[in-house]
């Protein structure tokens, strides 16, 4: 498993996302309320750029007329057909058996740790004073 430095934390404020390609894989990294998530940017249904869709909540119902709306901002909705996936796990709520999108662990590491490696960050210059978003691949 390689660890990839994606961006300085300051570049990914809450509510933002960054699109990157690692080892030919299109990946998006999200900051949702200070938590970081990595997700394959390709919908397993028909291949659209999944992570260009909006982040919504999860609507569920135990009975007609009752709606529980949870996981606010944690469900990615595909820009084509609207398939929904949990950005924490990549799980589909319509067809979890057949469809899952690859989720990658993303977290923050201090620059002091990052410069020691082993990390891949050819396009970023890393300084010990900053914190960085790191994705495990």
């Amino acid at each position: 498993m390689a660890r990839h430095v994606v961006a300085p934390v300051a570049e990914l404020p809450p509510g933002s996302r960054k699109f990157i390609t690692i080892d030919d894989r299109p990946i998006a990294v999200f900051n949702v309320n200070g938590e970081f998530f990595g997700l394959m940017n390709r919908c397993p249904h028909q291949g659209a750029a999944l992570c260009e869709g909006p982040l919504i909540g999860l609507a569920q119902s135990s009975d007609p007329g009752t709606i529980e709306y949870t996981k606010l901002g944690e469900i990615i909705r595909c820009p084509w057909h609207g398939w929904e996936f949990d950005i924490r796990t990549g799980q589909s709520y319509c067809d979890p058996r057949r469809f899952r999108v690859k989720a990658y662990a993303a977290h923050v590491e201090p620059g002091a740790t990052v410069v020691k490696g082993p990390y891949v960050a050819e396009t970023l210059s890393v300084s010990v004073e900053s914190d960085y978003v790191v994705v495990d691949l």
Partner: protein
Amino acid sequence: MNMQFRPGAAPDAPGSIKTAIADCDIHPARKGGLKDLYPWMAKRWHEHLEIYGKHPYQGMMEGPPYPKAQPNASRRDAYPPEGGQQGSSLSFMQQQHLDPNNVALGILCPLQTGQGIRNQDLSAALATAVNEWQIAEWTSKDSRLKGSIVVANEDGPAAAAEIRKWAGNKNFVQVLLLSRNVEPLGQRRYWPIYDAAAEAGLPVGIHAFGFGGNPITASGWPSYYIEEMVGHSQCQQTALASLVLEGVFERHPGLKMVMIEAGFGWAPSLSWRLDKSWERMRSEVPHVKRPPSEYIRDHIYWTTQPMEDPESRQHLFDVIDWVGWDKLLFATDYPHWDFDDPSRVLPPGVSDGNRQAFYLDNARKLYGIA
């Protein structure tokens, strides 16, 4: 190496189809709304539109009765970089769809054209302008694209005149109607349209949707958009049954029609029911001389999107065997949100000949494109 992904572009998976395809349902949009059509409309209509607007058959509102699941019912990744709504930029359509998907023939199906409004003179003026606009903005700029003749659907004589005006013009390959009109499509008020299309040797495409003032279902207005989505196939069935039972195909033995964006999985079951009833009630419709299924098989083509997607691929193949591999026309519905990607729609197990027919040859043959 980490690199910034190009925003707005699709990743590499879709659009990697190698063989040329026909896309028989592309929706070109207008950048500036109805004003884009003004160059081809008399000044009288500019002012009429600004003072009175369009007055649809459908009550109380101008737009579609159900909110769509994505903005403008279109893919969120299809906004042109220069602005405007999805489908309004030829260059971006080329870059995002026509080039990467290897579209050799694209059939334009303009929507929001003035079909289904009550002022018949305005409907006819808008239809003419939309036809001119298709040539000026699309077909003259990209020879892969072919237009559909839009007509004032509720005014048979005006519609027929519009078709005759364009007959023989190579920019157009079909006449376009929508499935939901004031009356079922086989009825005589619409016959001038079929007469003129047959005379011009043009197929008639019948696209799902329409604004005839009737609910999407035969039992009233449903609550949800998902009911409208599946309701299109029900509306298409009533339109097709009407066309068969009113004798339109008996009157025009050479006329072809295309069922656009309404599915085809229901074709066998509708045909079986029609045939069974016809055997018992033939004398009610003596002008229907053959079993209804024969007219349907002989006259009807089906665009594929949204492709039927049963759990078992054999069920799909069984339906296609009934419909005919020579009657399916691949379509994406670009830029709409329920787009079908050409590399993903057909399951494995299809012969090369059938694939070629499905993706390209049937459309070329039907639309007379070499």
